[in-house]
């Protein structure tokens, strides 16, 4: 078995009785108390996740944004200091190399400062792709191992986190905005983003600060949460997981990420020709939300059937703790990708009815 990487919070999480699992080459907490309890903590109060395994790049140069624009379908011209854009890197076939967030951190000495946060499993692939496509005028720094990343999520997350950074007014920060400041005296990057469907922050601090910040969050009664709850939370919020719901062969138009594709604003980006064609002729499959009536979970790679014929595939599924029934994401042909459409899922040799459901399954109030 290959050696797994460890985050700066590995030891403290073990002390908190975290159960660990291998994920994208990292040994990560999958659960502390129970997935259900952690899930509920995030939906009703606040939870903290160690997401230090995620890739973190800092780009600087006079025209970084213009160069990045050639690689993503979303209009980056509206990105200004303190704002962020969720988007996708595309290959020539319009397939998704990764989904990521682009943070504009201002202009220093004429250089645009951009931070990218990418998936752990795709960090190396993204780095190779970006370095091959960005010119030498862009300085590219991989700070993945230099910084820890902690997600603090839930309706009470912001007010609790605010107690640790009196100098910064993070409560006033709009969603998807970010600022740099101090957290317990350490330099910190606060982004009002997340992967749970709740309000909250993703906070980047130097590796040395990680344990102190984590402990303070625990002292405030924030529940430590693992990747198990992270998955049930993101699925209820219907957010795609790279490598599972989206990959190099799925385009954003197929994956329900059409809102990231601004063909009328962005003249030229890698993969545009394929997306133009799909926009004109339609896509062959669409990612949909599915709900099941029983308690069986439709899991990754299970077949979707219609009138006995295999018509698609489940990409993610779980038992929704908030809703009390199983939910899933999967690809179906466009004629079946309609709300209230009945299909079937093949689960261990039997078929069970599933209904196409409007996404997201859950929306915070």
């Amino acid at each position, binding site marked *: 078995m290959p050696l797994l990487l460890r985050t700066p919070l590995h030891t403290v999480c073990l002390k908190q009785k975290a159960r660990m699992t291998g994920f994208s080459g990292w040994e990560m907490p*999958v659960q502390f108390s*129970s*997935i*259900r309890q952690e899930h509920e903590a995030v939906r009703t109060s606040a939870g903290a996740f160690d997401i230090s395994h995620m890739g973190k790049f800092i780009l600087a140069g006079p025209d970084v944004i213009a160069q990045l624009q050639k690689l993503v379908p979303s209009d980056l011209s509206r990105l200004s200091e303190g704002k962020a854009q969720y988007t996708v890197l595309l290959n020539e076939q319009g397939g998704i190399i990764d989904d990521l967030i682009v943070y504009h951190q201002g202009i220093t000495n004429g250089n645009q400062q951009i931070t990218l946060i990418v998936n752990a499993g795709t960090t190396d692939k993204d780095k190779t792709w970006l370095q091959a496509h960005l010119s030498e005028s862009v300085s590219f720094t991989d700070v993945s191992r230099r910084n820890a990343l902690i997600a603090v999520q839930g309706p009470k997350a912001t007010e609790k986190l605010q107690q640790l950074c009196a100098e910064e007014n993070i409560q006033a920060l709009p969603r998807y905005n970010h600022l740099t400041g101090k957290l317990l005296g350490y330099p910190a990057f606060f982004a009002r983003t997340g992967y749970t469907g709740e309000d909250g922050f993703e906070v980047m601090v130097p590796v040395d600060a990680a344990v102190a910040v984590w402990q303070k969050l625990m002292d405030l009664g924030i529940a430590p949460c693992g990747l198990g709850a992270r998955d*049930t939370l993101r699925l209820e919020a219907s957010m795609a997981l790279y490598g599972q719901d989206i990959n190099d062969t799925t385009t954003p138009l197929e994956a329900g990420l059409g809102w990231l594709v601004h063909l009328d604003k962005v003249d030229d980006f890698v993969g545009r020709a394929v997306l133009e064609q799909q926009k004109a002729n339609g896509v062959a499959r669409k990612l949909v939300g599915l709900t099941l009536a029983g*308690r069986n*979970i439709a899991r990754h790679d299970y077949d979707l059937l219609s009138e006995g014929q295999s018509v698609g595939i489940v990409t993610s599924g779980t038992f929704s703790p908030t809703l009390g029934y*199983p939910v899933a994401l999967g690809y179906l042909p466009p004629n079946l990708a309609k709300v209230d459409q009945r299909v079937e899922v093949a689960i261990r040799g039997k078929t069970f009815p599933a209904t196409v459901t409007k996404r997201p399954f859950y929306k915070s109030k």
Partner: protein
Amino acid sequence: MAFDYPEDLQYLDTHEYARVDEEEKIVTVGITAFAVDQMGDVVFLELPEVGDSVEKGENFGTIESVKAVEDLKSPVNGSVLERNDALLESPEDIANDPYGEAWLIKVKADDLSDLDEAMSAAEYEEQVEGDA
């Protein structure tokens, strides 16, 4: 973490336990506290109907948690006398009392010698503690 492994039960390496009533040849089947803990939040349980026959080493049902789905193996050949319908209604309760209230099925065994190869509590404990 240490779990209970009651002395009066017999264990399979697939984490089912058997509680044997020798006189009546009735075997109560459940899964161990260790297995329940490994599964995490259980959401679904599938059990055979009363009267169905079960076979030693073969699947008689499935247990599913948010994390995983596992087959349930019968420790003996026989037929199902009773199944735990209350547990089917609220499978998450399995974590509360796996050796008591949260039994799965009761089987009328054809031959109790099917259990000859089953493990004692000490043997099972050694196996799972070795896993951990």
